[in-house]
């Protein structure tokens, strides 16, 4: 029996096929990993079984859940399916919780609705679920509002909410993108226990390491179509489709060496190539590739019997020279809480001390909830803190008024979620104009500045007129960087800048970061991904429970 089956599924939104002729199967107990660049249609495919796509989306083909066509279900049955038969969590862990309701209440919803437990048992179940997600203090998490817990904690709570209704199938879109590898693997190990009792999982992820370690099957999407679908072990031992090979090659592996992004960009759904959709970027392309879409043979949609193995890797690049000390952080601590006398004060950062030089990128690593973002917020002066922060020889606490604002503009943030920080009603040019308007720069100077910032952030100038929602995740992230650069900063604080990006976009971004370092900028790079960090940073601070436990070199071991 199959739990979920999509047969020839095509999803059309605004006249474009986001997903085309998709065949997909998840059996009970099986984990299927759906991988591919952003915009490949993974999220569309994951949303379809819940019938939660935009109202203008048109489906054709069939989606069977437990052998019933879900489009024949009544309203009541659909509601029972959502959260009950199929538990789902979506990519935006930051936005998937209602900001004015406590986490516990939101996890309890599906338990009450689908399992009809009485309130006390419900509460106990919430705590149990949070605990299985590796959260140490489930009681506090349950009582917190979403903004009061860290990104990784929120993501785990979201996964708990997807499992709360006791589903037979879990659809998880990037469930671990904000987590350090150890925690991510631990959570998948927890899920393995549920899989033994029959839970099927459709996992959408950019993290090939995670997919390699836990998936039974791997399905690679490119521009809305399946290009390879094979058993996971065989796939990772030898990916056969040229696109799959390039994708694997764009994962960072050697410290200091930048991974190679796949050349070119994914095709615009409005003008797809007539034949193989990967042809414009494919190194093994032949004239025949442009005539017809290659048929699927033995799980691979490519004309070649055996594609030549891609050997992509960028030439090693030397590290830029370190300049003088730019930032000195001395004994900085942060405490949260204390609002309305209700929440007790909690110390999230103890006595942090370190220095950062011009042209240096310093990684901030550590498990989820260890205080990485808190450290970044303290440097950005977004939270109240104790201790001293000295930038360019000035103690920031001693400054007032305009001098303080000017000094703080020299430190610019870029956050994990690029869509959250860019107004969706803006075009790229408008988004970039904001800091210039704030700096009261005469309008005539704007175009030159924005062009230069775009170029430094590695974006083509033609994107200026594009509306923000039309950009891919990687492009949005680089627009956010360009915007930060327009404030003429000496220091960028990047909080998990790559965790929402696919490998190829990540490779692009890492390259951009190295360029910025060479131009003398300093960067604080907050991340849970040591391999990616090691390609842009030589050293990193390791945090644990709010303390800096070491400053370590990344190029050894």
């Amino acid at each position: 029996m199959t739990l979920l089956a999509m047969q020839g599924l095509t999803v059309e939104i605004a006249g474009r096929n986001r997903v085309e002729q998709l065949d997909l199967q998840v059996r009970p107990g099986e984990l299927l990993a759906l991988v591919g660049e952003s915009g490949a249609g993974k999220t569309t495919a994951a949303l379809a079984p819940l019938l939660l796509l935009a109202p203008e989306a048109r489906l054709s083909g069939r989606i069977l859940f437990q052998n019933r066509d879900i489009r024949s279900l009544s309203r009541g049955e659909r509601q029972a399916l959502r959260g009950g038969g199929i538990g789902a969590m979506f990519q935006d862990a930051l936005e998937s919780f209602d900001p004015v309701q406590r986490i516990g209440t939101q996890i309890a919803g599906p338990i009450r609705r689908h399992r009809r437990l009485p309130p006390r048992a419900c509460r106990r179940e919430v705590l149990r679920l949070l605990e299985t997600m590796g959260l140490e203090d489930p009681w506090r998490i349950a009582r917190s509002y979403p903004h009061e817990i860290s990104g990784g904690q929120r993501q785990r709570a979201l996964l708990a909410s997807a499992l709360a209704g006791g589903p037979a199938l879990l659809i998880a879109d990037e469930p671990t993108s904000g987590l350090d590898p150890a925690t991510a693997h631990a959570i998948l190990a927890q899920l393995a226990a549920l899989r033994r009792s029959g839970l099927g999982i459709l996992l959408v992820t950019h993290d090939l390491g995670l997919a390699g370690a836990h998936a039974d099957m791997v399905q690679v999407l490119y521009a809305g179509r399946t290009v390879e679908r094979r058993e996971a072990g065989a796939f990772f031992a030898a990916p056969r489709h040229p696109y799959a090979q390039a994708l694997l090659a764009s994962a960072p592996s050697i410290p200091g060496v930048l991974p190679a992004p796949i050349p070119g960009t994914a095709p615009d759904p409005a003008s797809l190539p007539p034949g193989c959709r990967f042809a414009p970027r494919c190194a093994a392309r032949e004239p025949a590739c442009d005539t017809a879409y290659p048929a699927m043979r033995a799980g691979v949609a490519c004309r070649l019997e055996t594609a030549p193995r891609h050997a992509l890797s960028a030439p090693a690049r030397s590290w830029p020279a370190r300049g003088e000390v730019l930032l000195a952080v001395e004994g900085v601590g942060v405490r949260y809480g204390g609002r309305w006398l209700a929440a007790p004060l909690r110390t999230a950062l103890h006595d942090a001390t370190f220095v950062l030089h011009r042209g240096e990128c310093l990684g901030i690593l550590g498990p989820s909830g260890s205080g990485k973002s808190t450290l970044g917020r303290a440097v950005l002066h977004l939270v109240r803190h104790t201790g001293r922060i000295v930038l360019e020889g000035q103690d920031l606490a001693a400054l007032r008024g305009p001098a303080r604002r000017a000094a703080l503009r020299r430190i610019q943030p870029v956050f994990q979620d690029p869509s959250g920080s860019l107004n969706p009603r803006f075009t790229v040019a408008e988004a970039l104009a904001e800091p210039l308007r704030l700096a009261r720069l005469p309008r005539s100077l704007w175009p030159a500045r924005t062009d230069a910032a775009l170029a430094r952030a590695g974006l083509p100038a033609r994107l200026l007129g594009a509306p923000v929602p039309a950009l891919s995740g990687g492009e949005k992230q680089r627009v956010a960087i360009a915007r930060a650069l327009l404030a003429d900063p000496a220091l960028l604080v990047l909080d998990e800048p790559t965790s929402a990006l696919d490998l190829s976009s990540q490779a692009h971004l890492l390259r951009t970061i190295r360029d910025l370092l060479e131009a003398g900028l300093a960067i604080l790079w907050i991340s849970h991904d040591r391999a990616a960090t090691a390609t842009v940073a030589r050293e990193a601070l390791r945090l644990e429970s709010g303390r800096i436990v070491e400053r370590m070199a990344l190029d050894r071991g």
Partner: protein
Amino acid sequence: MRRLAVRISAGALAILLLATLAFLLAHALPGGPAYAILGLRATPDRQGALDLQLGLDVPVWQQYQIWLRHLLHGDFGTSFAENRPVADILPAYAANSLLLSAAGLLGAVALALPFGLAHGLTARRLPGRVLGAIELAFYALPGFVIGTALIAIFSGWLDWLPASGDADLRRAVPSLADRARHLLLPAATIALFSFAPLARYVALATDEALASPFVRAARARGAGPAAVLFRHALPHALRPLVTMLGVSFAGFVSGTIAVETVFGYPGLGWLLWRAVLGRDYPVIVAIVLIGGVVTLIATLVADLCAGWLDPRAGFE
């Protein structure tokens, strides 16, 4: 806490300025109290005598000093027209006004919530557009037009409700039902002219909440339409509603004054109108002062409530 203290002292200063302005404006009105009281009997001698009696014979700045000193001691002065302390006259009118505005405000919220929710739910479809147009119409209509129209329909044409006053004068002790009947039309007028902007904010917040990822996530967890509306959309609509109530309070107060005069309802607004006609300076200034204080308190309370409704407030 420090922010609160700063706001309260800034507000107190603003009110003092407002009262001073009211004092000066009242004195700048053409004619004077003596003339207004004496009417046709006014002769220069009689006016001079009365001015002396009312304390209007000294220069304005001295009057201001005296007034301010009394005010700081909690003394609003004596009404020229009734020759009684203002502090004795006001409470009865203030109680009437309080009743009327409370009823009007309640009515406005009772209209704005369902109206705004319905508008927000259907924002991108025809019903939403129609509701939006209705809101705009009510927003544009001045209070006295609505009031006059209600009087024409419900007391002129249908003859269901009284057109003016606060109670039937033919009875010695007005019954509660009678008071309520007199309250109905003016309160409805206030509700009708002030609900539109509130409804609009509720609609915006509802629409935004419904389009947000957390609502999609809630639906993925099996939340039905009712749960989405009441658990997720409504709480997000309440906060802007409360903030708007605070912000629009000044307009609400001035609207109440207009409505009271249209309906001859004996509240502070009506009293203010009469005091202006009679050049009764102490009463005018006292009412302006009360209006300012009430508005200040309303905005403060609304801000506090909005913060309390949103756990994120106070966090950068």
